[in-house]
């Protein structure tokens, strides 16, 4: 019965979540469109700047050629009209056509989403696993030498920028293990960027988890379990782990979504063929349909993952569900 109530509440949360997500995405779409166009220059400027055609044309010919290209790309219309047309297509899951390749953006992103998801997921597992290890070791004796040492380790991981860690990792992995610096997305190539991503995301998760574990170890149910002779491992895994993880879900959601959709530096350094690496080249080419689609994808992933975490929190933590009942 209690389970059924929990699922009903979760369904209500999902329904509310879908409605608010749609609203958020609409607002985000406006912001994305406005921001992308606020940057100086456009795709026509980039094309003419790089091709050197200006040197061969009179100013009048160049102006005519630019106007023609702008017409072809749909950039000759007013921004509100461009937005309305774009939104009309987006709601039909048509993200437009890449200025550079002429391919549907959906296909272009589709080719790369799996690689980003694999990298983000693997990075998330590394972050969560290492955070769990560090937090559980630290929480056993707060303030002890191991706790201090692990805190220093976390601080160091926070202080080292991703690009530096990535470049160094690439350098030594290539020299020592023959790590393939570039190529397709493969398991053989996945581990190193996943470690770099995971190490970067680990410290915050580890600190929060440590605090949560220490708090849970001090609660009466944990003390009682310990008094009944529960081993440290049993105490942790049987009693403390689930409630200790509950406050972490929101952070974990944010971490996962940023790792999946916005691992720009890591994907570029490792030439990982994901959506972020693709977006970087699209940004420099002012390939608006691709940039807009990418940013919208990032927003969508953040919204969806966070809503999913809300639902998960309702299912995992009875206190959240109870609070929702009281509020209702």
């Amino acid at each position, binding site marked *: 019965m209690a389970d059924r109530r929990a699922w009903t509440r979760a369904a209500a949360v999902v329904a509310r979540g879908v409605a608010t997500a749609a609203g958020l995405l609409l607002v985000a779409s406006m912001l994305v469109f406005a921001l992308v166009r606020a940057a100086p*220059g*456009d795709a026509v400027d980039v*094309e003419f700047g790089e091709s*050197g055609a200006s040197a061969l044309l009179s100013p009048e010919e160049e102006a005519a050629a630019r106007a023609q290209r702008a017409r072809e790309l749909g950039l000759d219309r007013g921004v509100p009209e461009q937005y309305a047309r774009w939104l009309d297509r987006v709601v039909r899951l048509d993200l437009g056509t890449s200025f*550079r390749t002429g391919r549907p953006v959906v296909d272009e992103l589709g080719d790369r989403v799996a690689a980003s998801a694999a990298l983000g997921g693997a990075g998330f597992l590394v972050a969560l696993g290492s955070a769990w290890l560090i937090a559980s070791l630290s929480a056993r004796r707060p303030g002890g030498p191991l706790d201090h040492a692990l805190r220093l380790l976390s601080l160091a991981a926070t202080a080292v920028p991703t690009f530096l860690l990535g*470049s160094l990792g690439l350098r030594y992995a290539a020299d020592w293990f023959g790590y*393939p*610096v570039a190529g397709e997305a493969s398991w053989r190539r996945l581990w190193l960027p996943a470690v770099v991503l995971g190490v970067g995301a680990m410290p915050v998760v580890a600190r929060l988890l440590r605090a949560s574990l220490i708090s849970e170890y001090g609660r009466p149910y944990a003390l009682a379990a310990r008094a009944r002779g529960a081993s440290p491992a049993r105490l942790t895994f049987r009693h403390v782990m689930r409630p200790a993880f509950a406050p972490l879900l929101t952070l974990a959601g944010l971490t996962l979504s940023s790792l999946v959709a916005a691992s720009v530096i890591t994907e570029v*350094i490792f030439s990982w063929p994901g959506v972020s690496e693709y977006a970087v080249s699209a940004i*420099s080419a002012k390939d608006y349909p691709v940039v807009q689609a990418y940013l919208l994808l990032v927003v969508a992933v953040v919204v969806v993952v966070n809503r999913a975490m809300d639902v998960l929190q309702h299912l995992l933590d009875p206190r959240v569900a109870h609070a929702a009942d009281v509020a209702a």
Partner: protein
Amino acid sequence: MAAATVLLLAGCGGEATAGQGGSGTLRVATSALAASVDPMAELSASYLRSVGAAEGLMRTRADGTVAPELAEKVEATSPTVWTATLRPGLTFWKGGTVDAAAVVASMERARTENTLAAGLLKDVTVAATGDRTVTFTTKQPSHSLPSALSHYQMVVHNVASYPDGASGTDAAVADLTGPYRITGFESDRRMVLERNERWWGGTPGVARVEVQKVGDPQARAQIALSGQAEIVQDLPTDRAKELAAAPGMSLVAKPAANTVTVYLNPASTAAPALADPRVRQALAWGVDRQEVVDLATNGLSVPAPSWLASNPAFPDATAQGYVRFDKATAERLLDEAGWTLGADGKRAKAGQKLALRLLTFGVEAATGEVLQAQWARLGIDVQVRNVESSLINQSIEKGDWDAVTQAWTTLGDTAKLIAAQIGPSGAANHGGYTDPRIDGLLAQAAGAPREDQRTAAVYDLNRLMVELAPSIPVHPRVLATGVSDKVTGFVAHPLQYENIVQPTMTLG
């Protein structure tokens, strides 16, 4: 016809031929790749040419001269007509014949589909006058047509293979003539090519070429160092010493055929001093170009005393212009212009400091910083900002700029290229500089009947640019390529798109 000047550019065929095909896969890492297999798609032709997929009627040699490629010969049969005779037996990858009609169709599609090609073929009528004969008729006598035909955008493609709506990312669509045909294509990411057994020049040197885009320069350096590719293009100059010392590979550095130049705005309200040619000349004399090259490019480039100095076809341009660092002259010119040195080490005139804003783009950030330090020694306050190129263009359009760096190509139709720098309404004449001598010299550079007269006019224009100082030449960009010791036959070329996969290359 008797009076027609006849210029024969005949290809012996030996330069580009390979003729001794080897085996193996050549792995290439580049900083950028084609977005489309259609050479008429924006910015794709140069990349297709660079990997050995595309060819034109003519090509540019490493010394800056042009030579026949698909054409057997190109000759001026009258002052306004150039006639190209195609090599016999040319075919596209899929077997279609490359005859005069196919070349004309390719040119016409280029003109329609691509702005750059339209510019190159402006006022040129192209016609097939025989199976292997194509004539190019110009409105005015044109001496630069062979140069235009060597441009990467003039590559010959099979128009029938690129109907409207064809996918530009489908390798099967591509039908070109180069020594390597595309068999795998991922837009802007990866390309696989295999030896074109039908190639006119014999059997290309390697069986297969795999080209991978690696966007991060440090990652490219690592690929070169770990031997994971045989050719690595566009290596970062800040790792030059490490790369040069690495076993199993060579760092081949070639100054590109472009000149990193600081353009100056004489109408700047923020830096009114730039209206005075003495100040602009002082800035130019006050640049220690060797120091800039040493610090900003790790010694991989060379000083460019004049704008044209990076063009190997005009070797005397290296003796023109600011051939030495002359701080004394710079100081004297500034003093004469009234910008005197104060006790604080800064120059000022009527209470106004001598200051300017310098916008740089991309790798030129390092050049900008060295210039800032050098001009500070003259008492000039320079603020440097490294920004996107589009921001530089926008600043120029608005007129809100003092100095910007750009690197326009110097190799090609030199008369047109130098006209863009200094001619009225030239695309790179950002400051709108004028001089009564310019028009006449430009006309002579483009249309004088004898080559020595045209060359002399180009040198005069280059000299005039030094005198007017609309801009300050500094150094060519660097083409730094990592070449594995396994590779033989690599020839460094000042054009990026001729500098990666060459048919003569083999793997040892």
